[in-house]
């Protein structure tokens, strides 16, 4: 039970970050039906910029919280600029091209960003300075760290804020209108190029915050970190129903939990020594409480993609995907 609760806490933390990244995928997909594969790299750039700033300021004697905040405040505009530039140069010229063309361009943009980051920040794994004091809280037998609480709180705030933006503001309304019918949105006076650019920029802001959170949570950053994180967040967006904002939130949280529980239990479940006949077959490895584990927690990354495959096979529209009744 302790393990279960502990993995739930870990899973929700991770899932909240996936959700924030998944929002960037889903908003862009919703508005121009493009899977922006460069989005994961934007998260990475956010982590890298924050790393640089935090590293510079760490010795300066500022309070740790202020250092992280300054790091984030620098990461956000850089990510927004990067994402805006990619949209303007790589995607906008292909707006009317067959859908495969921008998709391949997105993969290309992702590779370019990754290698530019490698040139700037080297191939090395960069360790964030440990400036945030490790504070832990006990909650029903599970341990929750201060960073985890902060991540959960920030992600919750971001998701509420974004839902408010999308469903309550004029910009959000014009984003949804553009997603549903760009030509008519234009006839109503919406400058759809600006709305699309705004969507990219907002997603990039979220990605920057996610990058800082991932960096401070794991304490490391590397130029390759964006691809696996991006793919998982993409899986989360598909799980929730790509193009659907609440779906990305639900999908992210769910994927984080599935991943953490899977990683927490897969070792036990695939321990052959637990199964009588199999244990005898394995023989002495099981003697004296030994284990013969087929799959350990290093298989954690598999779960996201298993979920992705299952969703694509059994419910391609995702959990909260397109409600058929809304089709005009």
């Amino acid at each position: 039970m302790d393990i279960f609760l502990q993995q739930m806490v870990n899973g929700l933390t991770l899932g909240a970050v996936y959700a924030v990244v998944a929002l960037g995928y889903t908003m862009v997909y919703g508005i121009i039906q493009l899977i922006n594969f460069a989005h994961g790299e934007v998260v990475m750039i956010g982590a890298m910029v924050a790393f640089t700033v935090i590293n510079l300021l760490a010795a300066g004697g500022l309070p740790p919280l202020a250092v992280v905040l300054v790091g984030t405040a620098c990461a956000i505009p850089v990510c927004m600029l990067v994402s805006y530039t990619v949209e303007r140069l790589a995607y906008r010229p292909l707006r009317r091209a067959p859908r495969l063309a921008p998709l391949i361009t997105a993969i290309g943009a992702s590779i370019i960003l990754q290698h530019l980051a490698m040139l700037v920040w080297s191939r090395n794994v960069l360790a964030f300075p440990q400036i945030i004091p490790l504070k832990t809280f006990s909650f029903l037998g599970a341990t929750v760290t201060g960073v985890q609480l902060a991540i959960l709180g920030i992600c919750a705030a971001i998701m509420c804020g974004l839902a408010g933006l999308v469903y309550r503001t004029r910009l959000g309304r014009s984003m949804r209108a553009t997603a549903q019918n760009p030509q008519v949105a234009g006839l109503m006076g919406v400058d759809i190029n600006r709305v699309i650019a705004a969507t990219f920029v907002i997603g990039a802001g979220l990605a920057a915050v996610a990058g800082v959170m991932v960096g401070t949570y794991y304490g490391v950053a590397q130029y390759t970190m964006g691809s696996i994180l991006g793919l998982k967040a993409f899986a989360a967006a598909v799980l929730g129903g790509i193009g659907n904002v609440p779906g990305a939130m639900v999908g992210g949280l769910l994927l984080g939990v599935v991943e953490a529980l899977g990683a927490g239990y897969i070792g036990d479940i695939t321990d052959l020594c637990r199964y009588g006949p199999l244990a005898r077959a394995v023989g002495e490895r099981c003697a004296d409480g030994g284990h013969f584990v087929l799959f350990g927690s290093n298989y954690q990354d598999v779960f996201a993609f298993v979920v992705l495959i299952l969703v694509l096979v059994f419910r391609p529209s995702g959990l909260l995907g397109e409600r058929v009744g809304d089709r005009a």
Partner: protein
Amino acid sequence: MSLLEVKGLEVHYGGIRAVKGIDLRVEGGELVCLIGANGAGKSSTLKAICGLVSRSGSVSYAGMDTAGTPVHELPRKGLVMVPEGRGIFPQLTVAENLAMGAYARNDASINEDIGRQYDMFPRLKERRAQTAGTLSGGEQQMLAMGRALMARPKLLLLDEPSMGLAPMLVAKIFEIVRDIARQGVTILLVEQNAKLALEIASRGYVMESGAVTLADEARKLLAEPKVREAYLGEEAGA
């Protein structure tokens, strides 16, 4: 000076000439209809006026050549189009659709105008919190018109408002179009239903395979044998 003046308008889709150099004008306060068979180039003409398809020839609106004016600037100048197939936003609520109509406006009386649309279309008021995709075809057409009026248009371009509607609703929609015209909005109406369109319009143009073949006062067109034969379903000489 005409509110809308179109000269030598041509539209090409690939190698096909859909509109073959037509002239057209709409004076302020008029209700002008553009009739013709399916594929005659009526919708292409409207789209070209708004710059939704690439065109050659000149289109001037309120004395200004609109070449190079981006589509989203037109409603700010009072030129609003209700596209073919209504073009409502299916997953936005009725109220949000109406608010989108006022996107180009920046004044304080938007809510007041939403109230005015509800007075004109009580069904929309009942359904204001529903997503527009759940409305019937007639209600969607009313929403599309109400949304267009939210922009406070000077010139309203209507593309086939009767398309796909039951005959009773068609009559209702034409009544609404006439009411809008009486409120002082200039209208260019594209219709396949030539009889109803000519009955409410002051002038009409007849299009055939991309060219204007007849242009006259609506009541003269209604009496014109060629029109009666081709578009009003009457036998020649009957």
